[in-house]
């Protein structure tokens, strides 16, 4: 299951022990492809991390805040980021096929 980040509210992500956030946009083709893959992976890894999606246009203040504070700079979508105890520990840009995504998450979760 993927929870949607709305109203620039990142508190659930920051409070999670381990969170995976998919920064996406409605106009982005690769993001549309990424979403169903991430849905499957979120079910497989539900016991390891909480999964979130954040539309960068709807959450533009959040995106600016993450960049200004040096936490995470989003310059392309989709950007997938792993947060542990509120800190961004890994990120990757662009579509990732399921096997490679599972491998990347197993290294970073």
């Amino acid at each position: 299951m993927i929870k949607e980040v709305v109203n620039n509210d990142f508190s659930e992500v920051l409070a999670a022990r381990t969170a995976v956030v998919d920064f996406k946009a409605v106009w982005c083709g690769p993001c549309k492809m990424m979403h169903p893959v991430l849905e499957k992976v979120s079910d497989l890894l539900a016991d390891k991390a909480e999964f979130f999606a954040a539309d960068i246009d709807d959450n533009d203040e959040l995106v600016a805040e993450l960049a200004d504070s040096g936490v995470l700079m989003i310059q392309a979508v989709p950007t997938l980021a792993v947060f542990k105890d509120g800190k961004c520990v890994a990120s990757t840009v662009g579509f990732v096929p399921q096997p490679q995504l599972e491998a990347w998450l197993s290294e970073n979760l």
Partner: protein
Amino acid sequence: MERYDIAVIGTGPAGVSAAITSKVRNKSVILFGSKDLSAKLAKAHTILNYPGFPEAPGAEIGAAFSRHLDAMGIEITEDKINAVYSMGDYFALQGGENAMYEAKAVIIASGVVAGKPLPGEEELLGRGVSYCATCDAALYRGKSAAVCGFSPKEEHEASFLAEIADKVYYIPVYRKDEPAPVFSEENIEVLNVKPLGIEKREGRKVALRTDAGELVTDGVFILRDSVAPGQLVPGLEVEGAHIKVARDMSTNIAGCFACGDITGTPYQYVKAAGEGNVAALSAVSYIDKSK
């Protein structure tokens, strides 16, 4: 949306051969490329070792390829595929203007990418460097960008970007016989400089190093004729400029095959055509097993 059995990317000898064999094996096929087939083949002065064509100019072999495709009812779809997404049991192919296609198997026969990436280009991809203006333009609202266009075809991408960005610097990296770019948009400035590399700068900026100094903007777009294989198919295993393949032309992604120059040397037309045949037969076998 129609889901084809096999999508073939590239209309050189490898792609043409792969499409023909796919059709012979009664699979639905969509072939992406140019109606002129292959610029490299068209320009080949004399080919000495293509069976059946002693001392043939490349154009003669190309014309025969076209007749063969016509005779088999294989059409060429003139759309540049920017990305191929492995969705598990099928592939989604993204064309220009965000057109989408679907196929059960994909054969990459797009030829070897000429030219090395600029220093810093790959390291900063997605972090200030982009290969697709129509994909990432929305991120540049109110910002500035440099566009390195490697052919006049890329000028419309710069125009599209200029609708959203405040300022676009267009750097034509053209051959000498290609016409200089002319834009009607006031916020596009053409710079006749040679790009040398890309570096990160403070405050989410990137610097394009050129032979005439440094150009600092919010992003750099590198628009080439062909997309590097690792960018074309996210997750694909590559070795330098080539796609890593097994003897059956399979790649590390199930259902994705590659053939021709893109799999490595020797860059020979007859080797490419042979590999196209193997790739198609392997794709047919993959589809039949997946049923």
